[in-house]
């Protein structure tokens, strides 16, 4: 039976396992990914089954991890790199934006960079500083990278498969607060395209666009709005680079209203690009300006304030109301 109910964490683990199993060039690299199976256990059991040569505990140096992954890719390997937490990707930022993103173009296409950088991201887990950030815009702005984030177990499984198969570098943002959410995964299904948005719930009055951890919240908001007689469509973007603007546009042409939700700060967050471009594409369709719900222009706050800081049901519904009020 190919359909199984599993958590996002398990789906990722299964997907990595399958990749290791089917392609000897696939490697897992990162801090504590071996015996420990990663601090979130996403690589649990993989070193035991595939050996230290395929599942590699690295020195504690993120630039070194990504930099050597690039070298391994040049040698024909397909490294899947784990960054332990969102806030620790920055030591590797130079190698990612200057080397990983640009190598293919620099070589006029003569080398490829099939490297996946996995980043557990986002907040709401009550953690200390640097463990709750949402830096996706800082990668999506950079040409040469692809940036995705699954919102459910099936996507976690299949998007990881596709990311590993991609000949381009993929920054794979894993919604860590949803790791233990379960969903059905059909490991024999034919998956949709990696960079296409998905209508997660149909509606006619307003579109909520989100990705990763905020999709579930938006679905809850849509359900709550439905009780008040408002029909809200939820679009799961799935990919932040490229963004499926056609998909969002199709929804907005129907609903004429758009609210974008992400945990990342609003200012120059992915929502700003969606607002700008959808406004350009749908100028005569929009009944209200595209509204955005997200983090503030502040550092991610201490855990005891994160519930207030993070977009929650009320803030999303408030934005829905404000949009509908135009």
């Amino acid at each position, binding site marked *: 039976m190919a359909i199984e109910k599993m958590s996002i964490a398990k789906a990722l683990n299964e997907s990595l396992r399958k990749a290791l199993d089917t392609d000897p060039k696939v490697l897992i690299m990162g801090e504590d990914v071996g*015996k420990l199976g990663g601090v979130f256990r996403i690589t649990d059991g993989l070193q035991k089954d595939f050996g*230290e040569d395929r599942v590699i505990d690295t020195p504690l140096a993120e630039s070194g991890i990504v930099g050597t992954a690039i070298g391994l890719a040049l040698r024909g390997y397909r490294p899947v790199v784990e960054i332990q937490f969102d806030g620790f990707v*920055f*030591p590797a930022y130079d190698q990612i934006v200057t080397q990983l993103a640009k190598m293919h173009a620099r070589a006029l296409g003569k080398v490829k960079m099939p490297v996946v950088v996995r980043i557990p991201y986002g907040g709401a887990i009550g953690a200390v500083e640097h463990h709750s950030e949402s830096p996706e815009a800082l990668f999506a702005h950079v040409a040469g990278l692809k940036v995705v984030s699954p919102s459910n177990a099936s996507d976690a499984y299949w998007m990881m498969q596709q990311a590993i198969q991609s000949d381009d570098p993929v920054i794979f943002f894993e919604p860590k607060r949803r790791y233990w959410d379960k969903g059905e995964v059909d490991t024999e299904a034919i998956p949709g395209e990696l960079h296409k948005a998905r209508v997660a719930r149909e509606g006619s009055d307003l579109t909520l666009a989100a990705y990763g951890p905020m999709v579930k919240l938006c679905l809850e908001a849509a359900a709550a709005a439905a009780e008040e007689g408002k029909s809200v469509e939820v679009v799961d973007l799935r990919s932040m680079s490229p963004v499926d603007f056609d998909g969002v546009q199709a929804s907005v042409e129907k609903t004429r209203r758009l609210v974008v939700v992400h945990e990342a700060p609003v200012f120059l967050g992915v929502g700003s690009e969606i607002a700008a471009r959808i406004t350009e594409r749908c100028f005569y369709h929009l009944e209200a300006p595209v509204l955005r719900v997200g983090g503030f222009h502040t550092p991610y706050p201490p855990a005891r304030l994160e519930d207030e800081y993070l977009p929650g049901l009320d803030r999303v519904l408030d934005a829905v109301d404000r949009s509908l009020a135009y």
Partner: protein
Amino acid sequence: MTVESTAARKPRRSSGTKRATGKTAAAATQSAEPQLVQLLTPEGERVADATSAEFAPYVADITADDLRGLYRDMVLTRRFDAEATALQRQGELGLWASLLGQEAAQIGSGRALRDDDYVFPTYREHGVAWCRGVDPTNLLGMFRGVNHGGWDPNGNNFHLYTIVIGSQTLHATGYAMGITKDGADSAVIAYFGDGASSQGDVNEAFTFSAVYNAPVVFFCQNNQWAISEPTERQTRVPLYQRASGFGFPGIRVDGNDVLACLAVTRWALERARNGEGPTLVEAFTYRMGAHTTSDDPTKYRRDEERAAWEHKDPIERLKTHLLASGGADEEFFAALEAESETLGKRVREAVRAMPDPDTMAIFENVYADGHALVDEERAQFAAYLASFEEGN
């Protein structure tokens, strides 16, 4: 011979190479097991070899009273640490990074400092904080989630905890460069772990401090583990040797020997004050507990390893010495036990009384001089919150 030392250890098992080890044209091999500066054996006896003779003068002034002080520091630090671990289990803290086993390294080095010296800790230097006079309850704020570091760094010349591995070594170096510019004779101590030694920043700190001859002591607590990774994932030679290639001395000290840590740190600080630049001290110690309360060491290390280190316990060792030398009596230990209890109680109560921050604190201290966007978002959010209160 111009060839520098080769690896003291064999290539790792897992390197996957099947090649034979060929003859090298030239290879000066360093001694396999590096010496350790030790002044007090695990059995609590004073060491009297050549190395210790070199460093013993640095603790020649230490009286029985001082020894009791060091002992008290370690006991209270451990007690505080245990209390914090318990508080995490009770849900009062979100996380705790225990220093269990590293008390001697921290108290020994911490007590070597002068008030005008400056400390750059990681997230585990609770013992050093204690030496600096930072109220231990202040350390708990960030682990409880009410702030990211609640104390005034300049209050005790003890910088905020730094979570991103290695970053603080550069801050320490810069601070030390500033001391030189000021013509002061203070020094800086930068703490970091064995795992941190791999970070580019730490090695850049070595370069900057050497080039500018900065008065900084790099104090590496090699507790054998970086979460689940043993030290050989970070280096194939002893860590103290890293320094020589940057042009300054490195030394390995028994990190469970508070006297040796005190002596070696004093020596290194003296070098700094004398304008001799940076020193790397590797305190060879052991993380007796889990990496943090989130960690499960049974996944990656054997019980026997931990058990072997029990015997080297830094507190027991000094206790034995104090008892054997008549430096302390049962009364002292009993009084200390009582003091520990009081401390534990105070910490417990303080944490439970710690208020959650005000919501609007989110917008505070983002900028020193203000920022229009923060002001706008603050106002909008306040209005949004008010809309509920008005029973909207």
